[in-house]
């Protein structure tokens, strides 16, 4: 079997889920024509009536999905860019996240919202955003952030099977950039676990999406310099795998958290706080965060975009500093 891209893994998982469960349907803007990233290419033809173009209205994409899921379907909604999900914030926060809780389990919502997030594609302020901090703070909604194609496939299938709302975040810069042979690759099948993808003795790096790949590249480079990195692929924001995170932090006593999102109030804060509370005695250095700067959003021009986004060089530099601490 040939290596597949992130995009192919997503597309394949959608087809697989639709094939095996009639209740699964796909809805969103332009999904019938295949979607702007082509994630739903071919599905409309293959599954007639089960791929539904919606009006240009995100609150309704999510609100209608809630109704579909409550009724017993398994909607997989696509929000064209993560940046446009915010009009559906209310439907997610006030409705979807509380559905099961507020009925004590009498009602529940097997629904998935997929959306491309992240920068690096000259998308400017409204096509580059990281949204995990906002939507990872809604108990009742699971938030998944895979990095490797095999996990994209297995976790998307798990998300569709899950009886709860799952926000499935797809890093758009990695869609065609990252490839993996699915066969034999480690693939998480349970939502809520992180994975240690590399072990080293000096510094622990925790990341997700494109930053995970940049972190791995930095780790490779650092290994040549004699600095060993433990790298954690977060995979899930909600539920948060505190155990794996703390285990990895304890292994080196020094932690660097990397994310594209802006620093203050970004999800890295939760990871740092978790470690500062539950692995405190093992720490040998301040917990460092390498993140986007505290500006409202990623700028368009590539020079500024590159300045905004952490990359392997800056990650390596931060690790070196920590290692020397």
């Amino acid at each position, binding site marked *: 079997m040939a290596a597949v891209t992130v995009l192919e893994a997503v597309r394949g998982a959608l087809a697989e889920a639709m094939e095996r469960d009639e209740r699964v349907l796909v809805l969103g803007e332009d999904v019938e024509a295949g979607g702007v990233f082509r994630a739903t290419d071919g599905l409309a033809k293959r599954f007639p009536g089960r791929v539904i173009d919606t*009006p240009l209205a995100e609150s309704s994409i999510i609100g209608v999905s809630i*109704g579909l899921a409550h009724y017993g379907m398994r909607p997989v909604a696509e929000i064209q860019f993560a940046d446009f999900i915010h009009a559906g914030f209310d439907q997610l926060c006030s409705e979807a996240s509380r559905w*099961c809780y507020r009925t004590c389990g009498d009602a529940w919502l097997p629904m998935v919202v997929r959306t491309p997030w992240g920068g690096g594609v000259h998308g400017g302020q409204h096509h580059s955003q990281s949204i995990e901090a906002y939507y990872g703070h809604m108990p009742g909604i699971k938030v998944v952030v895979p990095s490797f194609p095999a996990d994209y496939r297995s976790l998307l299938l798990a998300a569709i099977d899950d009886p709860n709302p799952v926000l499935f975040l797809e890093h758009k810069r990695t869609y065609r950039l990252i490839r993996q042979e699915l066969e034999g690759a480690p693939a998480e099948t349970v939502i809520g676990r992180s994975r240690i993808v590399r072990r080293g003795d000096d510094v622990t790096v925790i990341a997700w999406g494109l930053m995970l790949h940049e972190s791995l590249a930095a780790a490779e480079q650092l290994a040549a310099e004699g600095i060993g990195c433990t790298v954690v692929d977060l995979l899930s924001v909600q539920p948060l795998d505190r155990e794996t995170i703390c285990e990895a932090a304890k292994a080196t006593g020094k932690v660097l958290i990397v994310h594209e999102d802006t620093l203050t109030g970004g999800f890295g804060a939760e990871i740092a706080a978790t470690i500062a509370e539950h692995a405190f005695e093992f720490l040998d250095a301040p917990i460092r965060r390498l993140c986007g700067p505290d500006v409202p959003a990623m700028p368009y021009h590539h020079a500024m975009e590159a300045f905004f986004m952490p990359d392997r060089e800056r990650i390596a530099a931060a690790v070196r500093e920590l290692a020397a601490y």
Partner: protein
Amino acid sequence: MASATNSETAGGAHPGYPLTRAQLLQMYRYMVLARRLDERMMTLQRQGLAAFVIAGVGQEAAQVGAAMALRPGVDYLAPYYRDLAVNLVFGMTAREAMLNALGKRDDPNSHGRQMPAHWGNRERRVVTQSSVVATQLLHAAGIALGARLRGEELVVFASCGEGSTSRGDFHEALNFASIHRLPVIFFVENNGYAISERTEKEMAVPHVADRGRAYGIPSAVVDGMDAVAVYQTVKAAADQSRRGGGPHLIEAKCYRLWPHSSDDDDTRYRPRAELEEWAKKDPLVVLRGRLMEDGVAADGELAQLEAEVEEEVREAAQWALRQPDPAPEDALGYVFKEGG
């Protein structure tokens, strides 16, 4: 009771009515039951036994008329907080209503997790809702789409107040439902106020029903103080809708005879004279009068019915007060559905 909630007039309609005698009595009974429950809840609130009440007083005709035109067990409800009477028609008991009002552990709606009047009962096809107004209209569209895909013949009844039609979700729901010609009855109970704001502050058109024209949705205005008229309007729309006729928008003109809620002081913004004028059209009084006038029932029979309801409500409140409260740690659990 269940048989009379069926919207078909199997036993033959009462002359001049689209409903049988039994149904008409049932209709009146539901309205009285809703009123007595609201009154009792407010008493409990004043006694410090309930924290909050939001009542449907003045809207019983709209609610019961509409709900009786539907099919409990088949049709879905996506109601809003004032719709106690709608829920009664769909099977909620007086005891359950009281459990809900008191936030008791065994309240089937939310087990004390939500404020009172936030309905929800999966088995009865009542969709759980939040306090955020108008969101449920989109859920209704989604359910209707699901039913369409599965080939189930039903309608989804989605209600809200006139103020709530100002929200974006109202637009998006009507737009979505009309594009897909979904079986949704959008039922707007126009009670003249959104808390303190009169309808003119919510829209520049005279009728909520005018809003339907933006979507090509057949829309109607009906006298919401007249239960029978509401029944007829909703019945016709629902029958069309469930057979593929697409969504309908129905505006029931009624009036909120009480303040917005137990927290509200309506004397700040509502002219006393206006209230008194509307109080004369109290839907219970109107229907009672008509039933007597048209020979559906005699004063004694109605008085008997009222006494029964009074007793039912008294008993339900007494019973509910003795039921267990949620334990503090019941705040935990059911964040996620297991298995499923």
